[in-house]
């Protein structure tokens, strides 16, 4: 390990995993933690429990803001374990001099998003620190939810499953990059930032046999697929032409040298469902505005264990890797 913590260690990819396993898991090791799921399953599978801290620049971006993100993030982690979010805590660190009006705007977004999830904030904490000690505002939320469908786990995916994605990918990452770099777009590219509780609930109510769920946040869809390939000891074969990518996101990727599968999402999830349930799952997802373009993207095989393969439309294939380092543009 390096002597100092680098930004790459927070990228959701390789270096991030190393930091977590070598420092945190080593100290906190226990059976629940080591399952490495989006949320911990506790109390004999009755409750899901998760925490997340939020920092984003800019604080307000097309399609959301840090407040909306802070509620969606934690509620989505709970939903990904088949749980309905119930109670959240909220802890805020604010930089001296932060505009009150912006703070109110952020809190208002949080309130709106809580309502959508049917969850409430039951405990909180605020700290104000001297200018320069944090970048404007950091928010942590922790949540508890009741598990509506047991047994959802990224450790049980098999050849009986197919992999779906709930909508077009890479929007959040692309929107944030565009906002940061001041790229003017003729069309309006918005973050996909949204709560996923409703969709998951609908899938469960429709009796879909869900094997695994995961929201494709940092590291994007490729990070999720690679984690699944390892955790379930399978090979995932992705058909590149089925990956839903909007023209705007594709354009940003071309300009900056990114791939949409590596870009972060904040309201997009990947599902592993039994083959026979795939069409029904898609039908359910298609009834929601923000998953109307859900689609099957991959199958499971044993061709290259613990690897993800991307099959191109012109008949070639390559490994789809976990993103490493910071996301950087290419210079040539």
């Amino acid at each position, binding site marked *: 390990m390096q002597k100092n913590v680098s930004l790459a260690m927070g990228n959701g990819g390789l270096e991030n995993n190393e930091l977590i396993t070598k420092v945190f898991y080593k100290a906190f090791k226990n059976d629940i933690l080591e399952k490495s799921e989006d949320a911990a399953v506790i109390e004999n599978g009755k409750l899901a429990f998760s925490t997340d801290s939020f920092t984003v620049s800019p604080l307000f971006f097309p399609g959301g803001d840090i407040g909306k993100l802070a509620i969606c993030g934690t509620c989505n982690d709970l939903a990904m374990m088949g749980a309905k979010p119930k109670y959240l805590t909220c802890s805020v660190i604010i930089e001296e001099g932060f505009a009150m009006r912006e703070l109110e705007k952020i809190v208002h977004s949080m309130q709106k998003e809580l309502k959508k999830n049917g969850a409430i904030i039951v405990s909180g904490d605020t700290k104000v620190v001297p200018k320069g000690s944090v970048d404007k505002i950091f928010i942590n939320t922790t949540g508890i939810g009741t598990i509506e469908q047991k047994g959802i786990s990224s450790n049980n995916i098999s050849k009986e499953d197919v992999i779906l994605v709930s909508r077009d990918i890479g929007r959040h990452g692309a929107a944030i990059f565009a906002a940061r770099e001041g790229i003017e777009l003729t069309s309006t590219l918005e973050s996909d930032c949204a709560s996923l509780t409703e969709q998951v609930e609908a899938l469960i109510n429709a009796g879909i046999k869900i094997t695994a769920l995961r929201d494709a946040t940092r590291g994007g869809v490729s990070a999720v697929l690679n984690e699944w390939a390892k955790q379930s000891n399978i090979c995932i074969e992705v058909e590149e032409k089925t990956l839903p990518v909007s023209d705007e996101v594709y354009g940003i990727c071309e300009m900056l040298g990114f791939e949409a599968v590596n870009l972060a999402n904040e309201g997009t999830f990947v599902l592993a469902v039994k083959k026979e349930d795939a069409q029904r799952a898609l039908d359910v997802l298609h009834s929601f505005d923000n998953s109307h373009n859900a689609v099957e993207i991959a199958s499971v095989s044993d061709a*290259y264990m613990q690897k993800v393969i991307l099959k191109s439309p*012109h008949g*070639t*294939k390559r*490994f789809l890797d976990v993103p490493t380092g910071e996301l950087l543009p*290419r210079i040539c």
Partner: protein
Amino acid sequence: MAHLELKDLYDGFRDPKIIEGFAKLIKEEAKKLPKPINIMEVCGGHTHSIMKFGLPQLLPANVNFIHGPGCPVCVMPKERIDHAYILSLQEGVILVTLGDMIKVPGSKGSLQDARAKGADVRFVYSPLDTLKIAEENPEKKVIFFAIGFETTTPMTASLIDIVLKRKIPNIFFHMNHVTVPEVMVELIDSRDEHVDSYNNQIDAFLGPSHVSVITGSKIYEQFPKKYNRPVVVAGFEPVDVMEGIYMIVKQFTENRCELEIEYKRSVSREGNKKAQALIEEYFEKADLFKWRGLGNVPDSGYKLKDEFSAIDAEKIYKDVLPIEEIEDHKLCICGDILRGMAKPDECTIFGTACKPSSPLGSCMVSSEGACAAYYKYGNLL
């Protein structure tokens, strides 16, 4: 006028049917080849496309790629990376550079490590973003660590142009721009008697896209004429690369040895004269520039002309910047790999002392380098 969408610029050049069509044509044509040919794609942008689109899988066994030295950060020797590292840690300095530089390790660490130690390192998409950083930090010395081939050199030159014309007092330059044709010559006809370039296996070159837009195709005229190596300047899209390969194969089957341009939509013989004039105004060739894995290559790098010493960070900070050479690892065979004389797994330190997380030679630094690709994709490609 019809509205032009961004995707119109690449859409047709990724059409699976056209790619497959060229694959078929190449296969047919290659049957006539008397012996296998090795094509070096000089530029990292090409290597990226070739890897991303899996193009080697579409080629017959007698047409091979040799991945060239065209990733500008990978070929930066440790000495230059150390300069960046040291400069970034100087009191009151903001070091600005392009993103790819962040991970590359010198002998002391990478810029990522320097930043974790408290250095103020900024990564920009365009050198001109440096102006804003300098304006917002008037009390700081902003040093632009300039890297890249001929594509990015004019951007540095235009930043210098603005800095001098507007008399901006706090922007300085550390020059590391390198040039393509000189390193191509080094690979096939090294002037260093200790280098075995005589036995190189490079049969033809796929010429860079963006570099050639600036320089014009004229810089490659020497290769078919003097060195008997065909050059086809091709675009970066997969259809461009496949068409370029097809054109090269045809030259061999038709017994021609020429300079051809596939990337006609952007490349002319003369190139961008305005950009060339800017380069000439501020820079001159350094006698030698050291490349990681290849050693000193004559006339392959630019330095600031003496009259601009006042903005030359290498001169201003000469007391803290070491000039001693750091040897490439003795067992590194990067030079042979780049000349097509060895495969990465023939190197004794491959995967042991030299890994993507601790690269020694340039071929392991870039994710697109031959060694890194072997390390990562070994059992698939």
